[in-house]
């Protein structure tokens, strides 16, 4: 078995991991980036649509163009990386020593490190997780990401009469892709009374192609012997329960599941990491360090993000946290203040702040509202927003000065109120 030592191991070479490894190397940490596929890049490699890098590069790039910018940066700085390297388990030896067991074609590698940055991303919910019953035909059921991989990496058309379950961005993007390639998208089915994705995608992906969006509807069962033949859909009531009288069938040959992403954290749960049930990811402090000292999480493994720019930002923050940890042989003891969810806040990251440095908060609301103020009453901070939607993450940069008075509090509450 090969044994190597590092300051930081970054697990997962999507945009969060790439950005984190680049920053870690820039800061002088002995870093290795571990990726289980045979190429770096993660999901953006199959994202051929623009909307990437508006903040980070100040350009509107496709996911593919964005990731190649990061590759070029990585080449220039000379980040060490492993491909076809699957992290099998993590052992906690001491607060500043972890062992990552990696399966590679060259054998088992035991990588010893002071810190870990975990950027493996999220997985898609399956048909069973969203309680769709009925037949289980082998052909015709795909998650949106799987359909995207098939179409936009491998040039395969999954089907020609499509029903999309879930109006999150991934589903909307795929609706447009199918329509562009000549397939008939019969409808997008959304459980909630409002869309799950950004408004810009509702316009560009559904309205542009006259694809009907059925809000407050649930996909109930699949009918189909060897391939999908129909989906049974029903309108739901205020409690999201299907209304018997409002059931109908949509003939189709393909069902695309875009019912949401879940941070991929089962490996971390095994080592006693505490998760936030709201995000599905770990609870972290402003360095994005989890309750396990020296393990940092960023990107979709931490919280499902809308913009790759935030993912990259989090990756860099995690690297900075790792640097601070390595420098001081552990993060110093800090009087952490709990960040509490107030009115209309469904989730917020990070969960703990110190008040001693600039931070970035990422949050999502529970319900859409217009003309609101996002406030932190304890420090009299407020931000005006004309529209808040669950699908659109709120990002707020708070300076050390703004947070000054938080240093005397036990907690800070983030809430949303109409103006």
């Amino acid at each position, binding site marked *: 078995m090969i044994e190597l030592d590092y300051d930081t191991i970054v697990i997962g070479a999507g945009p969060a991991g790439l950005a984190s490894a680049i920053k870690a190397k820039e800061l002088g940490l002995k870093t290795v980036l571990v990726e289980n596929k045979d190429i770096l890049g993660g999901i953006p490699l199959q994202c051929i649509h623009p909307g990437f890098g508006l903040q980070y590069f100040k350009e509107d790039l496709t996911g593919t163009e964005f990731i190649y910018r990061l590759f070029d940066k990585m080449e220039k700085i000379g980040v060490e990386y492993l491909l*076809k390297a699957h992290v099998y388990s993590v052992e906690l030896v001491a607060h500043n020593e972890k062992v990552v067991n990696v399966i*590679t074609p*060259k054998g088992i590698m035991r990588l010893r490190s002071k810190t870990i940055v975990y950027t493996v991303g999220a997985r898609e919910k399956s048909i069973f997780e969203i309680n769709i*019953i009925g037949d289980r035909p*082998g052909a015709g059921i795909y998650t949106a990401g799987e359909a995207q991989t098939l179409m936009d990496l*491998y040039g395969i058309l999954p089907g020609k009469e499509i029903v999309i379950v879930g109006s999150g961005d991934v589903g909307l993007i795929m609706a447009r892709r199918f329509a562009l*390639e000549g397939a008939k998208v019969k409808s997008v089915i959304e459980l909630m009374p409002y869309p799950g994705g950004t408004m810009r995608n509702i316009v560009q992906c559904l309205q542009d192609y006259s694809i009907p969006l059925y809000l407050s509807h649930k996909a109930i069962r699949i009918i189909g012997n060897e391939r999908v033949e129909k989906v049974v859909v029903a309108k739901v009531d205020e409690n999201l329960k299907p209304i018997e009288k409002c059931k109908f069938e949509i003939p189709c040959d393909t069902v695309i599941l875009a019912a949401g992403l879940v941070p991929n954290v089962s490996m971390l749960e095994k080592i006693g990491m505490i998760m936030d049930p709201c995000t599905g990811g770990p609870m972290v402090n402003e360095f994005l360090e989890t309750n396990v000292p020296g393990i940092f999480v960023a990107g979709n493994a931490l919280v499902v993000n809308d913009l790759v720019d935030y993912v990259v930002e989090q990756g860099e923050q995690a690297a900075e946290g790792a640097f601070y940890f390595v420098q001081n042989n552990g993060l110093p003891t800090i009087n952490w203040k709990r960040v509490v969810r107030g009115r209309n806040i469904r989730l917020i990251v990070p969960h703990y702040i110190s008040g001693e440095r600039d931070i970035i908060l990422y949050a999502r609301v529970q319900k859409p509202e217009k003309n609101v103020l996002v406030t932190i009453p304890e420090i009299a901070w407020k931000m005006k927003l004309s529209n808040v939607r669950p699908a659109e993450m709120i990002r707020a940069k708070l300076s050390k000065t703004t947070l000054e008075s938080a240093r005397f509090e036990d907690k800070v509450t983030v809430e949303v109120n109409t103006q």
Partner: protein
Amino acid sequence: MKMKVVIVGAGVVGSSIARVLSMYDNFDIILVEKEPDVGWGASKANTSIIHPGHEEEPNIHPHRAKLCKEGNRLWRQWARELDIPVKWPGELMIFYNSEEEKIARKYIELAKSNNIPGVRIFYQEELRKMEPSINPNAIGAVYAPTAGIISPFEAVIAIVENAVDNGVRLLTETKVEGIKIAEGRVRGVMTNMGFIEADIVINAAGIYSDEISSMAGVDSGFTVRPRRGEYLLFDEDIRIKPERILHTIPTPISKGVYAITTIHGNLMIGPTAEDLSVEAKEDTSTSEIGLEYLWNEAGKLLREPPSRTKVIRTFAGLRPEPPDGHWLIEAYTEPFGFINVAGIRSPGFTSSPALAHHVVNLIKAKYDINLVMKRKWNPHRSDIAKVGHMSLREADKLISENPDYGEIVCYCKTVSKAEILEAIKRMKKIGLKTVTLDGIKFRTGAGLGTCQGSFCRCRIALFISKYMDIPLHKVVVKKKPYGIGEVKELLKTERSE
């Protein structure tokens, strides 16, 4: 001159018969299966239990009682010989009140009549120590130590690999449409792939065994009805998982609802028991009512029922129910050479090894054949080496011998490229006409985990595409292809508007 034998159906019964027949020099055996792979009927959609045999009435169902007990014993040997994953945790039949206790005590009597070892009752205190996951409302349980949990689909695959190794020929995607009988003897079977000559035809067609039986013109009135059983399958990482097999008191139509931890580590609850019409033999759909019922039973059996967010799969299987639950096992003289092993409902899986020997003895007796054992018959078959099941040291050694073991394709279950390629190789070796994604799933475990294949299905399909030299979109999932064509398919054929 060897006798030509055609076995209809490569489920657990048909393949077990093939294996046992292959021990003898006397037979040229063809195992015929209408699906693309083996064991795709009730054999892969059941509760995975090897029953002790204390739930069979020897007076009413003498075959079932005798062969279940014998099968339970034989599976220990078969699992070792064939490298099939199995564990023997024993089972607890749980009762919640005194009426149920009365019923439970009947099973103690049955255990005595059937000579099943070690069956006894445990009450509350002891029960909780034996099985901490049990619901505190349970007042007691009938414990049967010889119950086991097997991987049913891997079992059938293992049996078939060994049978083929010993000379059996497997024909998949081959559906029997008629039986040719001339001068009172079986001559062969007519299939969608042509005529296959046979001196002996053995009907092991499970849910369609009534149709095959009527092709031979015997036992008119024998019908097999589908009894649907739905299941809930949960993620491996839930907190409360039973170590022993737990189930509720049997009903007239089912053995009760079970809560088990499968050999793969997943909590499974089921089955329901719903009689469907004879025409519904392809209806393996799940229903709201069925699944809701299982959630209720889960709450009844376990101290803490699993969270609804932890379901990774729901599925249903169809058990073949013969009239009055009687197995139809008969070697006919009119027509000579036709053998029914039909309507083999529970405890069918458990009984299969014993049933196979019983059928061979029936052939010997009824057709007066002097059985000659092969001098060289290989009882052994090894499973695909699985890197995810090894220690790190063992894995390291394996990878140094074959680097493909170090390339992980399925992250949820840690399945390597070498295992995928080995599965493809084995599927080709036993003669499957189509390498399917499901076939790889059942042989390697890839796609059985939390993500249910959303990450790995594409990568596995790429391997199949490469190594079977077919375009990616033509790779078959179960029966139909993964995609419908290349991405520009519709744009190329679209008429301009």
